[in-house]
């Protein structure tokens, strides 16, 4: 009797193990949280130094076109106009997403509506392989095939926004497709059945019912694709030409935030203005990635409310 009472009210090996296990598991989670906070803090503190320590105006940084951080203009202020890179990044991102979206929609519809079983079996590995190919390989193929083709067809050097867009198109395609497939699968079966039962053709059903119901999902998928494009570094850097000039057409050498970062970081000295200016570019990248995140959240919340 007393025995049982003791047993039931005292901690055992199991309770202790549980406490340690929980503590260790929490510590791991905490590490990840800490990591994210330190990334945000360190990149922000470096990136803001350009503005607070070197007193470059944020407006000038975002709107001026002259990027040559180691030199000063005639008024003595450093040449850190990041507009060419910002324009470059947004151009390749938007163009590649626009180009990829119809293909992604077609792929997703094929896998969910037209040939759900065989289509998935065949196209799922296609998507996985496209995701799996490393970005340097995309860059290499871009360099050896896309750039020469662009050069022969459109003239110029072949390096530029157009080549960057074409390479990114293939890279964001699987991202948009697989996310959109998920949201198409979430459209309830009976929506389609109801529509088909009313005598609508398959395309009418897809167009009027399925596509409409999955618009938030499509937007989310596109944003994810854009986030991937915006953050992609090496593949773009290899084909864009790396000239920090404002691009005046799609086939003149240009640059993106990531391409300048990868080529420049090794040639500057920590703590100097040219280096800080690069960190400011990294900060823009980071803020954009947070932005994409927020937009996805916003769409998700609105989608849930509409239901």
């Amino acid at each position: 009797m007393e025995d049982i009472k003791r047993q039931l009210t005292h901690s055992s090996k199991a309770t202790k193990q549980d406490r340690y296990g929980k503590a260790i598991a929490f510590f791991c989670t905490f590490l990840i949280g800490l990591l994210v906070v330190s990334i945000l803090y360190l990149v922000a503190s470096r990136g803001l130094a350009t503005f607070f320590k070197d007193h470059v105006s944020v407006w000038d940084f975002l709107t001026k076109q002259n990027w040559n951080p180691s030199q000063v203009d005639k008024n003595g202020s450093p040449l850190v106009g990041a507009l060419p890179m910002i324009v470059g990044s947004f151009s390749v991102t938007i163009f590649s997403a626009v180009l990829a979206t119809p293909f992604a929609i077609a792929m997703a519809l094929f896998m969910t509506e037209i040939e759900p079983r065989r289509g998935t079996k065949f196209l799922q590995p296609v998507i996985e392989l496209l995701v799996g190919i490393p970005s340097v390989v995309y860059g290499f193929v871009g360099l050896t095939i896309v750039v020469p083709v662009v050069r022969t067809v459109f003239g110029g050097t072949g390096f530029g926004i157009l080549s960057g867009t074409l390479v990114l198109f293939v890279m964001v395609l699987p991202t948009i497709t697989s996310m959109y497939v998920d949201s198409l699968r979430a459209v309830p079966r009976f929506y389609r059945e109801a529509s088909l039962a009313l005598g609508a053709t398959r395309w009418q059903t897809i167009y009027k019912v399925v596509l409409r119901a999955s618009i938030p999902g499509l937007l989310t998928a596109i944003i994810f694709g854009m986030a991937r494009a915006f953050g992609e570094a090496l593949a773009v850097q290899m084909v864009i030409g790396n000239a920090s000039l404002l691009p005046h057409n799609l086939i003149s050498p240009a640059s993106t935030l990531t391409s300048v970062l990868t080529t420049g970081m090794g040639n500057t000295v920590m703590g100097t203005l040219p280096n800080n200016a690069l960190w400011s570019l990294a900060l823009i990248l980071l803020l954009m990635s947070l932005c994409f995140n927020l937009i996805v959240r916003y769409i998700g919340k609105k989608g849930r409310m509409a239901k």
Partner: protein
Amino acid sequence: MKTYSLTDNYVHKFDPTKTEIGLSTENLQVFYGDNHAIFDGTLQFRKNAITAMIGASGSGKSTFLRCLNRMNDDIATVQGKIMYQDIDINTPEINVYEMRKHVGMVFQRPNPFAKSIFKNISYPLRKSGIKNKQDIAQRVEKSLRQAALWDEVKDDLNRSALDLSGGQQQRLCIARTLAMNPDVLLLDEPASALDPISTGKLEQALQELQKNYTIIMVTHSMQQASRISDYTAFFHMGHILEFDRTERIFTRPQIQATEDYISGNFG
């Protein structure tokens, strides 16, 4: 839909000096958030007897049963006392992991581990500190016999438990629970997923076990309750409206709701 008074009830009380009580509850209240699922549940479970809990689906039987070994801790707020061996086991000081070895539970759907038949039973034994191989083998055999499964699996103890039929899996789950040497056995519709033959074997095993355990069983089958239980509690909308000897419940119920339920005129 008829409405029944929720305050008229008839709950038989044992005299603890004459009858041994295996487990009892006092004023048990359960809330799922704002949903008040059990009201003032006060019930005694006699030792060495089978108590059946019947009632319409959603009336709170599973909720009540799961409180008895604190399986609802994470999902509901449970107030009131649950007395086991003169100890209130519904308090934060209780070591629930030890307590569950005394109050074992078998679920509606068989849930063997993805391990062999033997390991399904030996693994929890080893985890609870029994290391001697012979001891373990003995207890595996004994519990499989108690659950009336031994003869069917004795030649094949290394087979995956997932290859067994549903009825065999359920009896394996009972054996696994029995091997831990509990006092009280809680079963939530243990036969609902089984065919009639397996159900028969299961009921036989339970009647055998009744001699040594306090058995508390939720069932949706009134035939099953009348066949094997000694006492029956009738649940309605979170209230225990009647509790008595099974033959009294089925022959002379005191409450209109009970009578309607067992005669099929309910609701």
